[in-house]
């Protein structure tokens, strides 16, 4: 319900003031009175709210037009509708009054029916104005809430991203004869890439790379969960059987994860991964590929080529069989794992970077030390992208065994 509209009647003639008051009160207005412009201005400045001013034009000290001008000069927060009563008929007078800020006129001697009709119009305008103000206020409040929520979401995203990044291994690390180099270039919209490697009790090295489907804090947090689950223990004791410190086959690590993450009904979080074990003494690489892009092997003397025969992603359907691929790595052979953020990195006209370009690049940088491989991939992708940020996380994990 809008508040009762409040009118200020300004006239030096008390009889006129009372007459106008009676008519406006009958229309449901609350009435205040002033006998001249100065008193009127003082009331406007101090009264809680005036919606309408009905003023005589011809008044001593300050005429109605000047009064209008001074009302407008007050710049009240809420618009005041001004109606001037006048016997004047000249167009120039009306123009001057409107210029000064008058909204409407009523001729004197006035017809009470006309005044009532004018008041009806004023009430409609006031109702519109009040609705508009309410809507504006609602919009402002909604906007504030949105901004607040957005800021909070952004903070949560940043926190999730920080948690994710903190768990990544250092960019360059040597473990026995194996040298590892890695990098993750985050996309603007964070996503769920994760990788790690660690020594297993028998001296071999367990490693993995994971890409959780989807984007945002949820994917990042899932990647954090997977980092927690995928430790040396999962590679050695993960299936509940004793292996006397020897890692079991990578495909059983993946099967175990699939068993754990396949939901009964709705598919929620699923991911692709490479999970493997590297024996640094024999150079045997054994890995399970679950929907993740093929690892690239760069032999000392030979063209880079993809290895692995594909496999089902994890967390989609139960009862999926996973298998391992075994590759013998001669000393100096380099292996590069990457997320699909590399091969599906799109150029400005939408073309994917693709496996072929990646293989060519890895061939070109084969003489560079391993820690420069991920930099080279990152630079090549930036150039391919045309200098803009990535749509998806770009992760690269490279390793080689030295004799």
């Amino acid at each position, binding site marked *: 319900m809008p508040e009762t509209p409040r009118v200020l009647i300004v006239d030096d003639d008390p009889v006129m003031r009372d007459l106008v008051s009676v008519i406006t009160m009958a229309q449901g207005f609350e009435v205040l009175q002033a006998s001249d412009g100065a008193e009127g201005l003082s009331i406007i400045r101090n009264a809680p709210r005036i919606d309408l001013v009905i003023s005589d034009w011809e008044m001593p000290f300050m005429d109605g037009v000047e009064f209008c001008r001074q009302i407008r000069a007050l710049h009240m927060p809420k618009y005041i509708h001004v109606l001037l009563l006048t016997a004047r008929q000249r167009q120039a007078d009306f123009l001057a009054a409107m210029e000064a800020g008058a909204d409407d006129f009523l001729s004197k001697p006035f017809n009470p029916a006309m005044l009532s009709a004018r008041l009806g119009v004023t009430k409609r305008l006031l109702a519109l104005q009040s609705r508009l103000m309410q809507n504006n206020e609602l919009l402002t409040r909604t906007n504030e809430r949105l901004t607040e929520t957005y800021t909070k979401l952004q903070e949560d995203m940043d926190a999730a991203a920080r948690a994710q990044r903190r768990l990544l291994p250092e960019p360059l690390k040597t473990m026995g004869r194996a040298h590892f180099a890695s990098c993750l270039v985050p996309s603007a919209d964070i996503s769920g890439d994760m990788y790690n490697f660690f020594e297993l009790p028998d001296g071999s090295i367990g490693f993995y790379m994971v*890409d959780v*489907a*989807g*984007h945002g804090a949820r994917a990042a947090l899932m990647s954090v969960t997977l980092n927690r689950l995928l430790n040396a223990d999962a590679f050695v004791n993960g299936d509940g059987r004793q292996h006397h410190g020897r890692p079991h086959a990578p495909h059983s690590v993946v099967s175990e994860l699939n068993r754990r993450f396949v939901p009964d*009904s*709705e*598919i929620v979080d*699923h*991911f*692709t991964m490479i999970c493997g074990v590297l024996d640094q003494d024999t150079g045997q690489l054994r890995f399970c590929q679950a*929907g993740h*892009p*093929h690892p690239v092997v760069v032999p000392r003397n030979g063209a880079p080529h993809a290895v692995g025969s*594909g*496999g*089902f*992603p994890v967390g*989609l*359907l139960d009862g*999926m069989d996973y298998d391992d691929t075994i590759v013998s790595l001669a000393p100096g052979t380099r292996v590069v794992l990457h997320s*699909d953020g590399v091969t*599906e990195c799109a150029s400005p006209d939408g073309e*994917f970077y693709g496996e072929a370009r990646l293989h060519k690049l890895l061939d070109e940088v084969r003489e560079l030390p391993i820690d420069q491989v991920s930099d080279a991939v990152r630079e090549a992708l930036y150039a391919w992208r045309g200098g803009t940020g990535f749509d998806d996380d770009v992760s690269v994990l490279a390793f080689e065994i030295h004799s």
Partner: protein
Amino acid sequence: MLTITQANGTNVLTIDAGRLDAAIAVRFKDTFLAQELSPGPVLIDMTGVSFIDSSGLGALISIVKHLKLPGRPGICGLQPSVKTMFSLTRMDRVFAIYPDVATALATPAQ
């Protein structure tokens, strides 16, 4: 995005999404769940899909799970990048893959 028609007693789901990726995966799945299917085999026509990512695959598999079919649903019209993704992720274990709608409909349901 998704239209369902009947052909020789088979429900043909035609996906016309361009990219079936993380951006539309959830909307795609919900659109499917809102539709009525007749009893009988299902064929998914992917001719209108030029790219699929793992979220898109997740949406397709959600649909398959929801259908609870006795055998594998058919899928056809895989464009090169979709075909690559299907082979990388061994989707032939979930779908019977055909070159096109005509071939699929001419093959007895499995």
